[in-house]
């Protein structure tokens, strides 16, 4: 279980997170939604262990994040950054193989190479292993990094695993937005706890078991996605007109229009 217990974070001049409390169970996809500046990225950084909360605590499987050795933590949780930058001429295989680095001692084995190949196939880039990373498009690079984190924590294990994603669909076309979240869904079905920052409500409604809605640096609401994303609350927080639409198969979407 990933627990966020009353986490607050302040920069010298302003408070960015105010007593945030929720948890991510292995096997669940949790969406983190909120307006710009609500503190989503900062929250993700305190959860990954990069920033230390001013008060409160983040714990993976009962152990505070600061007490984990970086290497042990890297075998348990992976982070997909928002805009990864890499200006050196690596092959796609090399980049994905970096995801294996917390697991590998000495040289990579056939097993590691199989995991990389499978990860690339999952993100639809199976033929790209020998391509040069710098020659890929922005969206393709984003998917290479998704394959990298899959190589890091995708391997089935008895230990709980976690995946943190910061706007994983930014810059992706519609089909790959959905396939990215389908991969997240699939990982959750295999027992991974997924926490993902999203902007598109309909992706949350389609894929997230639970949603945490941040507003003005606090948790406005959290719980099952359908209970959190009500017409009223969405209209209120995002200052838009929101109308619920139920597809024939029962899937719920939200139609968004400007306030009249």
């Amino acid at each position, binding site marked *: 279980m990933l627990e966020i217990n009353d986490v607050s974070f302040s920069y010298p001049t302003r408070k960015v997170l105010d007593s945030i409390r929720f948890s991510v169970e292995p096997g669940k996809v949790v969406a983190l939604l909120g307006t710009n500046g609500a503190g989503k990225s900062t929250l993700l950084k305190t959860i990954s262990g990069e920033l230390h909360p001013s008060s409160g605590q983040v714990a993976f499987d009962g152990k505070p994040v600061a007490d984990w050795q970086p*290497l042990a933590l890297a075998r348990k949780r*992976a*982070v997909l*950054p928002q805009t990864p930058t890499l200006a050196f001429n*690596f092959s796609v295989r090399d980049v994905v193989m*970096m995801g294996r*680095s*917390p697991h590998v001692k000495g040289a990579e084995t056939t097993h590691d190479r199989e995991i990389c190949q499978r990860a690339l196939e999952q993100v639809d880039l199976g033929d790209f292993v*020998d391509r*040069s990373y710098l020659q890929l498009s922005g969206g393709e690079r984003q998917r290479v990094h998704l394959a990298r984190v899959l190589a890091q924590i995708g391997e089935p294990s008895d230990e709980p695993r976690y995946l943190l994603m910061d706007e994983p669909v930014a810059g992706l076309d519609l089909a790959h937005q959905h396939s990215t979240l389908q991969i997240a869904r699939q990982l959750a079905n295999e027992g991974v706890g997924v926490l993902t920052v999203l902007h598109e409500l309909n992706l949350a409604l389609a894929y997230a078991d639970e949603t945490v809605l941040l507003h003005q640096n606090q948790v406005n609401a959290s719980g099952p996605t359908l209970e959190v994303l009500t017409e009223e609350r969405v209209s209120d927080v995002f200052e838009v007109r929101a109308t619920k639409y139920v597809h024939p198969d029962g899937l719920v979407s939200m139609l968004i229009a400007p306030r009249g």
Partner: protein
Amino acid sequence: MSPLRSTPARTALLIFFGVLALLAAGANLVFGTAEIPLAKLFEVLAYKLSLSSTEPDALSRTVIWDLRMPRVIMAAAVGASLSLSGAVMQGLFRNPLADPGIIGVSSGAAAGGVLAILLGGVIAQTLPDFVQYALPTFAIAGGVGVTFLIYRLSSIGGRTHIATMLLTGIAVNALAAALIGFAVTRFADDAQIRSITFWTLGSLMGATWQSALTVTGVAVAGSLYILRQGRALNAFLLGESEAFQLGVSVQTVKRILIFISAAMVGITVAGCGIIGFIGLVVPHMVRLTLGPDHRWLLPGSCVLGAATLLLADFGARTLVAPAELQIGILTALIGGPFFLFLLMAQKRRFAL
């Protein structure tokens, strides 16, 4: 052109770099003002390494073993140290333009060295046992200090600002040049200060067994740590946050790497002045051929660095024989245009 990807091909190229280094070392031992036949070289080597009891003539022995050998070892160690430091700094700063000479690390070390000489009298009075270590210690301190300064000044949120890094280099280089100029003109009669060109253009001429082995010792010790950090440096190329997420103890590894690479530059400067551009050109050539993976880049830079400086020294000793060219002139003649070329290539990608 894309770099080699297969392990056998990369190994073969690495071996080729090694053979190149050995050939260059051999050429430096055989050719020179005093003509010594190749057979004599093997005779001297066999005798000195206790493989043969035939005693070669005194002239061959002195020239090869006492004059040329320390210089060859010095050239190899300095070339390997500068190239390896360059590769490490480029990885840490995530920028292929980070050369210890350009960003001011070498100048900082030179300024430290000159300061040690200026303070020689004071040191001799207060810490007489420390005198012989003062120059290398001050040089290392100068190099390390400048590197941390650059890191503090040019890192913003885990990313290095190229312009700030290069501007810091300009400022440090100017300050160091002023200090060296002041020392050399003010104390021109002090043999220890040596010439201004020693510090700014470097020279392997003064290499002795002692200085060569000191530089080699530091190079070996530093490489033992650095060569094991290939995977960590690869992760650094993604960014410091990403390196941490991949399990690297970012702050610890970064501090140790900065310290070791700057210390390696410092000790070479104490031994043979500033030899520029090696740390820029060599890792770049290795990236073009072996690829950017640090597990190949680091050993490749070591070996090709040694070969490159041995070849440069061969050029310096033979091109204008019987006189000798400053080795820094040669490396700058090749490295300067190369740096401009890299800048132009980068301008498109980074927008300085």
